[in-house]
């Protein structure tokens, strides 16, 4: 009897995955099925590839993603090694500096690179690659860091006593131990760069369009939904392959290492210089953004800020910034309220059901494997008939933001949830705590780091989300990233300066939210 009741409790935990599953079904699975079955004109399956713009987009997506990934991994691996193994002045700040960009709004970072680069490079592959490095080094630090951080110093010492030179130690011990994590960081970085949309919207240009941009252009500007869908599905297949490789490895948890585990070894001069240069790479674009937001027509002026704050009217700029801030904040809060409990509950369920673990987690993490642009397009097509005409509902956007944040919430919660020893639960039970008391008094306090990281992720993801939102936004409820993109799409100095000011505000507020809420896991 007792055994039976215990079995029931364990089984009921499994149902915690249901809210997340519904979220993924509504925002990804159903729309994708509708997308794949309803709008494709069979002729387009082949003919869409004959458009030169499509071929160019495909080649450019691939080429810039390969280039960006190669540089990101190379620089990221060097930075990660030093961050995970050495103590130095300003280490905590440095970790925050390299890891926060991952959650920064893509369009705003694009604007920062416009601000820092000379005009000739504004719409160039170099600018795109640099912005991608800025974003994705964080992936390397977050995935490879914990792995290397856990290597015992003595293991490296033992390699040295066996005659391995520093280089041989790298090749035969350090790299093999970080291999899986580096592999998954590579796959995730490639995915992020290949489906880059916000960055390309700002830094791209003629001949510099990715597949996502081409999907948007076909669907929205050319009205070629069928062609856009063929592209979307082809891209999804390619990403699914990358994604499968990624999820095969378990070292994909987006956690950071603990400070107390690091060695007392001091950095030598060369790595110090490297880290200093990297710190400059992360700060200079933001400083340039600040400077650029205060320059109009080559003179110092606060026009951009005045227009941004609504103090000064400018012909052609018709948004209400306060309303945009309100909209963004409202969406971010709602998205977090959905993503956080759903994600943590699902993680809880998954950690109790190890046998079906990978299948279930692959399913819930599905939104990560699909580019937000494709989700936006699929939802646009799916929910436009009675009684499912959700497109007109403002709630749709935060729900999608929640789905996009869900995989990140889960990835950061999984190691924390799994880190709670089963014996601790048993100990609480033997002391008379029922399942709920046990959860509230023992597990919930231990889940705090997962909750704060998840909250930071979901707020930041929603504040910066651009891909899906750009399809579904309405004039009266535009978010800040949408407004930034539209400002940069306009000619003239003032819209641009205003865009710079808006970008800076968005970057600073996102970074502050993440650093404040998630302070513990950034140490």
């Amino acid at each position, binding site marked *: 009897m007792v055994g039976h009741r215990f079995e029931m409790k364990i089984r009921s935990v499994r149902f915690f995955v249901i809210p997340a599953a519904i979220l993924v079904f509504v925002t990804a699975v159903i729309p994708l099925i509708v997308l794949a079955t309803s709008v494709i004109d069979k002729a387009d399956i082949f003919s869409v590839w004959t458009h030169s713009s499509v071929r160019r987009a495909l080649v450019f997506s691939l080429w810039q993603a390969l280039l960006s990934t190669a540089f990101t991994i190379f620089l990221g691996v060097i930075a990660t090694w030093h961050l995970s193994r050495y103590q130095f002045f300003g280490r905590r700040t440095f970790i925050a500096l390299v890891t926060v960009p991952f959650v920064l709004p893509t369009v705003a970072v694009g604007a920062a690179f416009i601000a820092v680069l000379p005009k000739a490079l504004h719409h160039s592959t170099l600018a795109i690659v640099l912005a991608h490095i800025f974003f994705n080094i964080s992936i390397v630090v977050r995935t490879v860091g914990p792995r290397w951080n856990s290597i*015992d110093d003595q293991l490296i*010492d*033992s390699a040295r*006593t066996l005659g391995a030179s520093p280089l*041989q*130690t790298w090749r035969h011990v350090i790299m093999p131990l970080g*291999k899986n994590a580096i592999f998954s960081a590579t796959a995730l970085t490639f995915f992020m760069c290949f489906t880059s949309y916000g960055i390309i919207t700002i830094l791209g240009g003629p001949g510099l369009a990715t597949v996502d941009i081409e999907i948007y252009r076909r669907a929205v500007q050319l009205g070629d939904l069928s062609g856009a869908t063929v592209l979307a599905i082809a891209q999804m297949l390619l990403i699914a392959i990358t994604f499968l490789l990624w999820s095969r490895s378990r070292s994909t948890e987006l956690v950071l290492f603990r400070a107390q585990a690091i060695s007392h070894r001091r950095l030598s001069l060369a790595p110090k210089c490297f880290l200093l240069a990297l710190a400059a790479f992360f700060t200079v674009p933001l400083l340039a953004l600040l400077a650029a937001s205060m320059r109009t027509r080559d003179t110092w002026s606060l026009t951009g800020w005045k227009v941004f704050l609504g103090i000064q009217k400018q012909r052609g700029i018709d948004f209400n910034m306060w309303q945009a801030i309100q909209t963004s904040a409202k969406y971010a809060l709602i998205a977090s309220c959905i993503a956080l409990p759903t994600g943590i509950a699902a993680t809880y369920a998954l950690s109790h059901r190890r046998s079906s673990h990978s299948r279930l987690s692959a399913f819930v993490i599905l939104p990560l494997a699909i580019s937000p642009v494709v989700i936006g397009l699929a939802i646009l097509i799916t929910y436009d008939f009675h009684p499912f005409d959700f497109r007109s509902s403002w709630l749709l956007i935060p729900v999608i933001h929640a789905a996009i944040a869900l995989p990140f919430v889960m990835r950061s919660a999984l190691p924390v949830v799994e880190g709670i020893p089963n014996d601790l639960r048993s100990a609480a039970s033997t002391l008379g705590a029922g399942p709920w008391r046990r959860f509230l008094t023992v597990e919930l306090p231990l889940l705090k780091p997962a909750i704060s990281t998840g909250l930071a992720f979901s707020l930041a993801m929603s504040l910066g989300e651009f891909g899906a939102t750009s399809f579904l936004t309405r004039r009266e409820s535009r978010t800040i990233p949408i407004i930034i993109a539209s400002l940069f799409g306009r000619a003239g100095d003032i819209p641009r300066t205003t865009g710079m000011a808006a970008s800076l505000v968005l970057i600073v507020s996102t970074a502050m939210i993440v650093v404040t809420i998630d302070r513990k896991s950034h140490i």
Partner: protein
Amino acid sequence: MSLIIDNISFSYGDRTILNRLSLEVPTGTTTAVVAPSGAGKSTLLRIIAGLFTPSSGSIILDGKNLSLVPTHLRSIGMVFQDNQLFPHLNVYDNVMFGLRMAKTEKMIAAERCRDLLNLVGLSEIAKQSVATLSGGESKRVALARSLAPSPKLLLLDEPLTGLDSELHDRLALDLQQILHATSTTALLVTHSIPEAEIISDSIHRLQTTVDIVPDGEKK
């Protein structure tokens, strides 16, 4: 291949861990340094291996001062307290590691590796993952691995700590025989006098931050 430790001192911050320590390990013998926990035994071994730099004094192996020689070129093997087997390599590849680093010819390396696995009685499980090994087996792999590149000197850091008493005694005897069979010059640090008596030819006592007191030759 004698080892001379000449007036070695080592401090960590304000704390003096070793103070003008001198000791000689004659060629082909096993010398034990016995000391309580925290007396700086492991530090001494790390200094000899070149993993720590002493604040003064020198380490002389075969008449050569090792002060400027990096760890990997010292030809000093070390068995770590908790073995430190490479988790990504199986038993065979762990033993092969040092031979690979030295770029030993494949046939010779493979033969040496097989011989050593036979010597420590693990040839049956050569292809097993090190994660599946018992405490005693791990220790034997660690020993075979450090002997494989034929080091001039072998350092043993509390090699039998954490093993149950029956296994401990058996392994102590095996260790003594293996070191003897391979005529290895070895320096053992331990807190256990009985262990030192079984394994080593001579015993020295190390007291906290004080010089080594010779305990006389073992019979």
